[in-house]
């Protein structure tokens, strides 16, 4: 062992690997310290803070109109939904509601975001498990959604479309037609997703029975979103605490009791169908009227504490605003889904192989800037 000194193997004969912060499958600057016994994982310790930009602290100096857009940079794959959560929370403080038209546009945008986020996740899952081709299939549909976003919001990733009281501008005249086209395209192409990845024997072996998370553990770690629902936890905020009129649309909360990587995969795949169905219900029924409720130029929230939760593509995002009556928040706290979901990784990965850890990370669908904020 002269070549590989003691610094590589610990006294207990453990092999310690620092996976990240620069690593192809951590999707950003996540740093996982892994204790290995051969290929078997004994312990995983996530190290955070590599992309901490103090969005919460920064927001204390921003106005209620401006702080919303900082959240686009948290979970950048569901930027719309993050913005929506903040806008809703401010609206709660002002005791106003978005106009009916704005509410429907918000749901449409949120579901389009969820679709594009799940598509990116699907591609990356394939990529993480070693299949490169799914990524390009996923991006074909994602690109079409991004083009809709570009047309209406002027941006593709951080759209900055939500404002307190509604949306920033009205939808583009082409919006309805293009959304319908994209929905048709997705419905036609979704079977390809299953053909290339889901039914593959190697894929099933890599995901079935891997990274098991029981219902009790999921609840105790605070795991939400598709990850929690795959463990049988009914935690869809859209169902339990409906906002924006989600109670008026028909959709199912997808639940699975297996709790393994395959269950998490299937829950997300089925959620895509549900998003398509929500969009199809609403796209022809956008009410006429204003796209924004009139608000004062300088928004001041009354003194108090306000909390709003929404369902992002990854789980429950909570926005907690403490106001002292000034033009900017006194304190802001985000309850981000990825932080809680990541906390379960040690529990899930113990005893698994390195390849399993990658599968677990892929199906947790982590977005690192959301963990650090």
């Amino acid at each position, binding site marked *: 062992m002269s070549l590989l000194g003691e610094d590589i193997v610990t006294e207990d004969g453990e092999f310690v690997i620092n996976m990240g912060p620069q690593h192809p499958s951590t999707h950003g600057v996540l740093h996982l310290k892994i204790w290995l016994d051969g290929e078997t994982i004994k312990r995983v310790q996530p190290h955070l803070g590599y992309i901490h930009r103090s969005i919460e602290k920064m927001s204390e100096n921003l106005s209620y109109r401006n702080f919303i857009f900082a959240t686009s940079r948290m979970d950048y794959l569901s930027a719309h939904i993050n913005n929506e959560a903040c806008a809703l929370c401010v609206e709660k403080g002002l005791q106003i509601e978005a106009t009916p038209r704005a509410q429907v546009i918000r749901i449409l945008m949120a579901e389009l975001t969820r679709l594009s986020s799940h598509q990116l996740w699907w591609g990356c899952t394939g990529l993480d*498990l070693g*299949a490169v081709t799914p990524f390009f299939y996923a991006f074909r549909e994602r690109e079409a959604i991004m083009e809709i976003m570009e047309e209406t919001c002027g941006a593709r990733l951080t759209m900055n479309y939500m404002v307190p009281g509604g949306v920033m501008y009205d939808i583009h005249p082409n919006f309805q037609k293009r959304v319908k086209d994209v929905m048709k395209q997705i419905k036609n192409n979704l079977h390809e997703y299953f053909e290339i990845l889901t039914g593959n024997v190697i894929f099933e072996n890599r995901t079935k029975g891997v990274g098991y998370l029981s219902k009790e553990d999921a609840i105790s770690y605070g795991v939400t979103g598709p990850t929690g629902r795959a463990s049988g936890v009914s935690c869809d905020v859209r169902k339990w605490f409906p906002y924006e009129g989600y109670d008026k649309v028909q959709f199912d909360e997808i639940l699975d009791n297996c709790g393994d990587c395959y269950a998490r995969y299937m829950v997300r795949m089925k959620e895509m169908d549900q998003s398509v169905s929500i969009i199809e219900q609403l796209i022809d029924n956008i009410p006429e009227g204003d796209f924004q409720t009139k608000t004062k130029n300088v928004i001041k929230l009354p003194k108090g504490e306000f909390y709003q939760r929404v369902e992002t593509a990854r789980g429950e995002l909570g926005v907690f605003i403490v106001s002292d009556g000034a033009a900017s928040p006194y304190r802001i706290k985000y309850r981000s889904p990825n932080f809680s979901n990541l906390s379960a990784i040690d529990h899930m990965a113990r005893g698994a192989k390195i*390849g399993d850890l990658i599968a677990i990370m892929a199906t947790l669908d982590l977005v690192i800037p959301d963990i650090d904020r």
Partner: protein
Amino acid sequence: MRLLLTYSFSSLSSHIHAWLISSMGDGMAALVAEMVIVGISLIVFLVPLCFFLGYMERKVAAFMQLRLGPNRVGPKGSMQIVADTVKLLFKEGLTPTASDKFLFNLAPVIVVVTSMLVMAPIAFAKDFQIWDLSIGVLYVTSISSIAVIGILMAGWSSYNKYSLLGAMRSGAQIVSYELSIGLSILSVIVLTGSLKMSDIVMSQQNGWWIFKGHLPMWISFVIFVIASTAEINRAPFDLTEAEQELTAGFHTEYSGMKFAMFLLSEYINLFVVSAIAATLFLGGWMPFHIGHWELFNHIMDFIPSSIWFMGKTFFIIFIIMQFRWTFPRLRVDQLLTLEWKYLLPISMVNILLATLIAIMGWHF
């Protein structure tokens, strides 16, 4: 035209041989000169081949992934791979401070040299073979297993944990899959009764083994393609490089030309295993013949033997490339399970069946 089609490479090589002996005498010098000529022509052949395979891989990938692939440098992007190679040549070849410098620099050479050595007994066309030694197939299997030493060396000397893990995986993987490869080759050998490459090709004059040998040959062929994909560390068996797990596996620390040598050996190996599969199961350079259809066989003979060989080889290369762009990667324990619990028992039963066919003379 007729001359071109029936032209045999043996006349060219015997001309060169005679000229060398006349100018240098019948001694060591002529032999060395011949070896140098063979070596140079091999490199001259291999580099464009690898360029082509690299280009083909990108185009196949692009074709499967709804995109265009390289299309800017040169006609249809064909010069892209040349540009990439030039870039690699000019890159600084870093050697990590803590690494074992001798082994670190030796490893890529070993890997490339072994894959080039395996080219020796391959029959590229009628009478076109570097060295038709009597134990051709045995030579191929034994030399190709030396490559694992180069990979282990690279992983061990890099002083990198990912490299080490990758190297250890490749050790387990290559040693395991050699068994299946050996057994599936053996099932052809029991039918031909010879290890000599030229004999194996000649024995398929009336039909290729995959057609003559009934079901066991099909099973052997499938097992050979699967196991050799694992042997050359290509997806879905690329656990030694496993980008998403081990960043780049055993060659994480390599850059510049040393990295290019690993890449080169990967493509040479791809060509070699496909060439051997084509030789063993699809008749090598032998044209497609059906029993006593004299006219049909005659027409088939008009296609030059090198085109037959290359066509078959590239068909198998195309299949193996499609594996890479379709399947996810196996996990390390599943990789070994596949070999020891499925492929190995199947090949053992299969070789018994092949032997039975050979003894009873049931093959055509």
